């Protein structure tokens, strides 16, 4: 499950650190204590920055770094599609073998396919993505702004 790509992102996280943003959320994974504080900055519906600080396992840290890579600069609707595809992959219990189409969408994030076989770790991989979704809802004014990652 520890693909080279994941280890690289873990050791050299992209975009780490808290910068100016439109909304900030703090999410924790109560079963293992992983934590993330994440801010989003929008220009209209374009994501201009996702900045974050956190502690946790390599999976949760690398996942935040990949998220930053993938989402910054994207239109909200594209980002949502990426997020949904990643969620689908992570909930697949190892049953999805990413194809080219999926790789086009997820890029480095396909490396997490192996993690989906480990139910205890799926939440780690999703932590930053859930935080991003939540922060976006707050920034742009949406529904479930209050929800924590269960």
């Amino acid at each position, binding site marked *: 499950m520890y693909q080279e790509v994941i280890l690289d992102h873990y050791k050299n996280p992209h975009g780490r650190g808290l910068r100016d943003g439109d909304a900030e959320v703090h999410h*924790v994974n*109560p*079963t*293992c204590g992983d934590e993330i504080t994440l801010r989003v900055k929008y220009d209209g519906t374009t994501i201009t920055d996702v900045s974050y600080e956190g502690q946790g396992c390599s999976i949760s840290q690398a996942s935040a770094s990949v998220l930053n890579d993938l989402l910054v600069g994207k239109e909200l609707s594209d980002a949502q599609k990426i997020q949904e595809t990643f969620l689908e992959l992570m909930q697949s219990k190892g049953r999805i073998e990413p194809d080219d189409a999926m790789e086009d969408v997820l890029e480095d994030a396909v490396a997490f396919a192996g993690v989906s076989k*480990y*139910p*205890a*770790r799926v939440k780690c991989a999703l932590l930053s993505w859930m935080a991003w979704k939540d922060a976006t809802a707050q920034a742009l004014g949406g529904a479930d702004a209050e929800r924590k990652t*269960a």
Partner: protein
Amino acid sequence: MTQLPGLLDTEAIRKDFPILDRQVHDGRKLVYLDNAATSQKPRQVLDALSEYYERYNANVHRGVHVLAEEATALYEGARDKVAEFVNAPSRDEVIFTKNASESLNLVANMLGWADEPYRVDRETEIVITEMEHHSNIVPWQLLAQRTGAKLKWFGLTDDGRLDLSNIDEVITEKTKIVSFVLVSNILGTVNPVEAIVRRAQEVGALVCIDASQAAPHMPLDVQALQADFVAFTGHKMCGPTGIGVLWGRQELLEDLPPFLGGGEMIETVSMHSSTYAPAPHKFEAGTPPIAQAVGLGAAIDYLNAIGMDNVLAHEQAITEYAVRRLTEVPDLRIIGPATAEERGAAISFTLGDIHPHDVGQVLDEQGIAVRVGHHCARPVCLRYGIPATTRASFYLYSTPAEIDALVEGLEHVRNFFG
């Protein structure tokens, strides 16, 4: 051999149950007619237990090692099987307990500690029936004592059915919860769920159904029942001891407070306060009965392979035959419905004034296992003015020949004490 329409291939089925080969009292074949107390277990369930312990045993949840992942998958897989078995809208509505008694106590305690609108307190009323198992009486008596709520109940008709003639006085606007048995373990009566649920819904009361004697014997559909809680127990349905189930409606489980506190049921704990995991985990404190859940899952697989409709048809045929044959025994009086309509596979009776203890003991000497006493439903004995009954109860492996043995055995009892 007696052939009845609807019978299962008991010859094949009995091969799955090692204990049914047992001989007792120097070579007498065991005739096991105490299924309402507990059922026997098929090889398939015993194998599932052994396999669990020999290959997968680990504590569940939170583990990142192989065994922990596998044990968790097996345990949660058992929850899926139970959810499907009772047609639950969501697997998260299935709570594992240690037995039906704990399930019923769990409901009573949730309501005792709940906030409005669920809270049971001195302004409110609890409704049960006179044919409940002690496990569906005592928890409500305790709750009534401890909260000041009033405990009310439906009485029984002379032929062993619920007397619902005063339903509008029994279930009122003050009623918070109506808890009743789907199939009585002493009378065998199958109760009219719909009439009770309709009235409960009218006044906004919750409904809890004790399905301990239903789940083993007939298809169970919690959505069709329209109840809020349904309780049953594993050991009566081919499963291991030490496992019970409470099904509850999701939004209720979300709103209601926990009962037992401890590991597994929390979200986060500090010395000052704790928050709780979502249901079902909120109600499963401590290491759950893991192997027992897995065993119950195997029991459900076993029953599904036969088909619950077929189990029901078999038992109806057996019960009809038993009612017919028992009615022929002089001085035998059935306590409960005297026909096979709307009744389950447990038949209680008295035999002249021979005490049930003596009936049971002399039957036992012939290898026939029945239960005698008040069957944890003493108010029923009080209602019918008898100290106890003898109860024969059947399951999917029961045969007409066993009924014949029972009837012969009863003749012997009569001669012995005659």
